[in-house]
């Protein structure tokens, strides 16, 4: 709530001419916007392009932002539409689970970490990789729900869908994620989850 208030204060500052305040907003929201963009683009260069485009569009339309909803929800809806436009332009094909390039390589985390931490890190790497194997819409909904601190209603608003549709899509996305995890982990599935 406090951050929401601060977001609004920053927006008002930008609207009265203190445009440098927009940098604070960018820095605050860039990790999530970039993560969401990564769910669509699958590579860093394209994701940066989408995220930059999103922030520029948000700046242009800042005057139209109705300060009733969360700024983050509004920003994520812009990210979603920017990413969809980008995908349409690039005509990206989603990666198949059987592609050779999808074979996961867990990086050697070094010897300074304890065994539990390494195991946990491996689980996160597997999970991240499983998310990248999902369809962009599924990955975006999961990311918005778990990392974007957005309620089903807010996600529905951001994606221009009904809350009930989002709930069903979220459930199906989680089932697909579970399937991808099973495929990646095979016998280790019970150890890691």
């Amino acid at each position, binding site marked *: 709530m406090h951050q929401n208030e601060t977001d609004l204060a920053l927006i008002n500052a930008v609207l009265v001419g203190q*445009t440098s305040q927009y940098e604070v907003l*960018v820095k605050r929201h860039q*990790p*999530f916007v*970039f993560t969401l963009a990564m769910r669509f683009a699958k590579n860093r260069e394209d994701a940066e392009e989408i*995220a930059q485009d999103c922030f520029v569009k948000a700046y242009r339309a800042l005057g139209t932002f109705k300060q009733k909803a969360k700024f983050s929800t509004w920003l994520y809806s812009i990210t979603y539409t920017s990413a969809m436009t980008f995908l349409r332009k690039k005509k990206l094909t989603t990666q198949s689970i059987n592609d050779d390039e999808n074979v996961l390589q867990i990086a050697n985390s070094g010897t300074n970490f304890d065994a539990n931490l390494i195991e946990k890190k491996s689980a996160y790497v597997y*999970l991240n990789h499983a998310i990248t194997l999902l369809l962009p819409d599924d990955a975006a909904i999961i990311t918005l729900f*778990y*990392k974007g601190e957005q309620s*089903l209603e807010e996600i529905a608003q951001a994606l221009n869908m009904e809350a009930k549709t989002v709930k069903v899509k979220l459930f199906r996305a989680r089932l697909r994620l579970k399937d991808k995890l099973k495929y990646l982990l095979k016998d280790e599935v019970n150890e890691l989850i």
Partner: protein
Amino acid sequence: MSTIEEEILNYIDGNCSLAEKTIIETKIARDKEYNLLYQSLLVVSQQLIELEFEEPSMSFTRNVMDKVNLELKPVAMQTKINHKIIYGIGALFICAILFILGYAIAISNLNKNFSMPKLNFSFAIHKYINPTSLKIFLFLDLVLALIYLDALLRKGTFKKT
């Protein structure tokens, strides 16, 4: 669709009623398989929450601000609407109406006896029902039916997409 998983996920997300919550908690406590499934889904949910964000390049903010500085400064939409102009236009219309009304009263001769104009309400309907009017009527019906059908099909297509 797996209803057990859906049930457990709703419980983990906090999207179930108090009665459902009690039932699920009982199942978790009594049913070993149910409990295992709950534990695995809980772990994955927790890991999804704990996943780290992807970080963009170091120059990301600078690049955004470079682009932003080339844009026009955003202005709140409310400040763009000048209420004085709106009121001014309204006043102009009211003045014009009052002027026309005053002028009409000034030039009219109010001494003359005023009588209501006689209106002829007799309507010979048989004059208007002829083959041409029927064809026009049917053609309009056909156009309206096509517009309705088009709207109906469009609605169905949008729902599917």
